[in-house]
Structure formats: structure tokens, C-alpha cells
């Protein structure tokens, strides 16, 4: 058979997939060199969602950057909020109140659940299991309902502030969390039954898109992709921020680094995220949710209307922005897809001098050609989905 194929060479076919292609999510383009169904070479183009996030940040005040960060990884905007302001807080050397740290942890984990749910759901859908997509999106929607309760918005949350968060958790948050929690866990069980032991799904995911730990590290992969390849690295453990050192959770790792490993890692992480939220809710102390440092936080409405200092303070904050002292900092959090880093430079003039974001999918996507060359065209779909490229983040 091999010699027959060699004797009868066929010209290859150049197939362009995307941007207007169901699998490319509208934000990327693959130019694939095909021999029959086998991928010989792949060229990835992205940037269709470029809006100049980093440049835009230089023209707005520190507070006005939050809405922009929402639109980075639009599936888990809360983690972006947290990540960005952690960098700013590093420069300003502000002490964030305990309660705010817990709230930030809770919302980060809720966002992580959304992120993983979306990723697994999209994978299932693009492999043809549309029902599973609906189950997972239903669970995600219930979490978004909760996020709406907390922040007032479902997607464009803009919740985090320098030195804390916008407002406190709703009083009945713990009660509202319970049904959502059980729904998420029940859904995970359903999906486990429908996918994890499904022969077709296993066949599609196992041994496709393999990347070993060494290569993964060489490419700078982080997050579930790196852990799927067997490297036990999670920023929440390696360099604990917020209150991750006070909660118990494990870092799931895969063995082979194929799509199935990444899928399992994500499913496990959803379970750990649920448990982290539970622990945080048990531990969360009472207290302020934002720092009382008048340089950095808006005064409360009572003092704005009731005292001249408050009014002036409010006026200065709104008109000239929060004056973050001169300095620069790099801060990193574990985003849905890996290390989400913000490098921020302040010249002390009320606006960021330079903002640089390290989107995890940028590094993750760069490994796609290695993972997919030589595989079949159909493997591109689960591999690309398990990378979970988010257009808003990678194109910035």
C-alpha cells in the first residue's frame, strides 16, 4: 500500500479554514495543506479580533481599563479583572482586605468553571454531541446568573477595583450558590456518563493532538494544556496568590498530553473549583470589601454627598483618575487557559504608561502545528478546541 501511494503521487490540496468557518470560532484562519485527509502543514493566522487593547489602555485612566480587560478572555472576564488589578496593586503596594481576597478567589473560580465548561462544551459540540453542549451551557448560564447577582452583568462584568472589588457579595450568595453547585455537579456526572466512557468520544480524543511535557514546556504552554502533558504546574500552587494557600485542592495532571488528557484535566478542575468555592464560603470573614486608602478607592457615597473632603476626593478620582505611583510590575494569575500575565508600567500620571498582557492561548496556540501535523483533518477540530483559543485574548 505504501509503495503504491508513493508510486502514484497526488498533488496536495490547500484548504483554507476560517475565519468564516464553524470550527475557527470566527477569529482565526488555518491554511491547511492536505494530502487526502492528512494534514501535511498548517499555517495559523489570527488577529481578526484585534482591537489594540494594550494601546487603548494608555489613553484611559486606571479604572477605565477594567472594561477592556473584560473583553480579553470573554469567557472568564473576572479572572482578567483580578489579574490586571493585582499588577496595579503591586505597584501601589496596597493591602487588599481579607474579604475582598476571598471574594476574588470565589469569582475567579466561578470564572474558571465557566471557562472549562465552555471549552468542553464546544469540544463536544464540534464533535457532534450537541446535547452535551446544551447541558453544559445550561450550567454555565446558571453560574452567569450568580455572577450577574454579584456584579450586575453577565459578561462585561468590570467588577474588580484597585484594592478590592466593586461591591460586596449579595447577602444570600451562599444560599444561591447551593442549587447552582448541585446543578453543576449533576451536570458533570451526566457529561461523565455521556462522554468519558463513550467509545466514540474516547477514540476521537485519545492519541490525537499529542504534545509531551518537554515540548509543552519548550513552547511555554501553561494551564490545562501543560498539566494535560503531565507537568504538575499550576500558578495557584506554585506561587499562591489571593487565598489559594488557605484552601485545599489538588492539581490534576494527564499522562500523555493528548486531547483526552486535557479534557479530563478540565473536568477535574471544575470539580476542584467547586470545592474551592465551598471552602472559601466557609472561611470568608466579614469586613470591608475594598481598601479604605483614599488615594486608591472611591469614597463611599455618604461622604461624597455629606462632606467636602469626600466630594473633592470623588471629583479628583473621576476627573483625573486614580494616581498610581511610579513603578512597574508583572503579575500573573492562573487563568482558564494558563498563565495570564499583566506587565504594567506606571509613570505616576493617572494613566497606564504601558500595559502588556501575556495571553495564555498565544503560547498554547503556537504549539498547534506540532500537535496536528501528520494527523487527519478531523483531528484539527478537537485539538483546536482543547487549546481553547479565545479570540479576544489572543488578538488583544
Amino acid at each position, binding site marked *: *500500500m*505504501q509503495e*503504491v*501511494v508513493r508510486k*502514484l503521487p*497526488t*498533488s496536495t*490540496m*490547500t*484548504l*483554507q*479554514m*476560517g*475565519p*468564516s*468557518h464553524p470550527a*475557527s470560532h470566527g477569529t482565526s*484562519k488555518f491554511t491547511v495543506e492536505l*494530502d*487526502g*485527509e*492528512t494534514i501535511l502543514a498548517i499555517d495559523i493566522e489570527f488577529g481578526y479580533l484585534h482591537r489594540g487593547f494594550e494601546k487603548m489602555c494608555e489613553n484611559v485612566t486606571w479604572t477605565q481599563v477594567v472594561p477592556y480587560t473584560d473583553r480579553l478572555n470573554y469567557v472568564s472576564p473576572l479572572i482578567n479583572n483580578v489579574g490586571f488589578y493585582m499588577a496595579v496593586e503591586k505597584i501601589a503596594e496596597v493591602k487588599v482586605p481579607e474579604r475582598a481576597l476571598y471574594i476574588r478567589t470565589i469569582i475567579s473560580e466561578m470564572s474558571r468553571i465557566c471557562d472549562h465548561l465552555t471549552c468542553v462544551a464546544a469540544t463536544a459540540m464540534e464533535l457532534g454531541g450537541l446535547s452535551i453542549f446544551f447541558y453544559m451551557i445550561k450550567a454555565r448560564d446558571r453560574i452567569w446568573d450568580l455572577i450577574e447577582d454579584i456584579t450586575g452583568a453577565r459578561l462585561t462584568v468590570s467588577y474588580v477595583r484597585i484594592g478590592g472589588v466593586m461591591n460586596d457579595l449579595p447577602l444570600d450568595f451562599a444560599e444561591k450558590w447551593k442549587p447552582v453547585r448541585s446543578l453543576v455537579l449533576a451536570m458533570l456526572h451526566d457529561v461523565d456518563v455521556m462522554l468519558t466512557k463513550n467509545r466514540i468520544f474516547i477514540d476521537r480524543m485519545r492519541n490525537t493532538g499529542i504534545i509531551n511535557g518537554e515540548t509543552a514546556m519548550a513552547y511555554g504552554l501553561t494551564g490545562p494544556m501543560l498539566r494535560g502533558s503531565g507537568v504538575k504546574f499550576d500558578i495557584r500552587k506554585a506561587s499562591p496568590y489571593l487565598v489559594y494557600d488557605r484552601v485545599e485542592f489538588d492539581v490534576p495532571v494527564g499522562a500523555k498530553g493528548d486531547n483526552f488528557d486535557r479534557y479530563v484535566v478540565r473536568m477535574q478542575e471544575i470539580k476542584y473549583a467547586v470545592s474551592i468555592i465551598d471552602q472559601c464560603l466557609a472561611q470568608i470573614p466579614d469586613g470591608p470589601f475594598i481598601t479604605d486608602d483614599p488615594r486608591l478607592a472611591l469614597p463611599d457615597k455618604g461622604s461624597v454627598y455629606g462632606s467636602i473632603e469626600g466630594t473633592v476626593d470623588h471629583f479628583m478620582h473621576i476627573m483625573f483618575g486614580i494616581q498610581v505611583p511610579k513603578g512597574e510590575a508583572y503579575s500573573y494569575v492562573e487563568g482558564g487557559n494558563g498563565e495570564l500575565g499583566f506587565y504594567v508600567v506606571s509613570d505616576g500620571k493617572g494613566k497606564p504608561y504601558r500595559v502588556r498582557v501575556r495571553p495564555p492561548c498565544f503560547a498554547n496556540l503556537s504549539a498547534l502545528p506540532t500537535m496536528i501535523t501528520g494527523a*487527519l483533518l478531523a483531528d484539527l477540530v478537537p485539538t483546536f478546541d482543547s487549546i481553547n483559543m479565545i479570540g479576544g485574548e489572543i488578538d488583544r
Partner: protein
Amino acid sequence: MPAQYYPMLMIIALAGLIAASMLTLATLMGPYRPSKQKGEPFECGSPSRGSLHQRFSVKFYIVAILFILFDIEIVFIYPWAIQFMSLGMLAFVEMMIFIAVLVAGLAYVWKKGALEWEE
């Protein structure tokens, strides 16, 4: 042609007619406003590169050849299968030999790698 086939012709004619009427209906009723861009082949919004009318991978042809071989051999089995109860042991043994040849053929193409589509 025996009488039992006439109704079959009727249904073939009717099915053909229904399908054809759907086709003509589609052509007659809808608007037709062609344009250069519309006529381009869809390739996710990018201009198509390279030609389509080229040689496909030989694997596809091999599937077709295998299909013809095996399908014909299976048709050989049918008359025997219908008369199976009246033919008895000898015919069974003979058919087993035939099937053994068939299996040998299958094993051969299997081993040759004609049934591999992965690489």
C-alpha cells in the same frame, strides 16, 4: 417482464416525477441573481487557491476496487443462502471454502495496509 415488475415501474416513475417536480419548482419559483462574488466557491471567505480538478489520493480508489470485489462475492453468496435449507451439508462445506477464500482475500488486503486510513 413479469407482471410483478409493472407496479415497480409505476413507483419509480412517480418517485422520479416527484423529485423532478421539486427540482423544477426550486428553479422556477426562486429569484436568480447571480454575481461574480456569489459564484465563487465558498472557502471561508478567502479566494480559493489551487485547482480542484487534480488527482485524489489513491486510497479512495482502492476503497472503490475493494467494494466491487467484495460486493460481487457477496452477491454470489445470496443464491446459496436462499437455498441453504434444501442444499444440505455438501453445499455448506463448499460455501465455507468460498468464504475461506474471501476471508483470505480480506486478510491479504488487511495485511497489505489497504484498510489503513490513518497515516
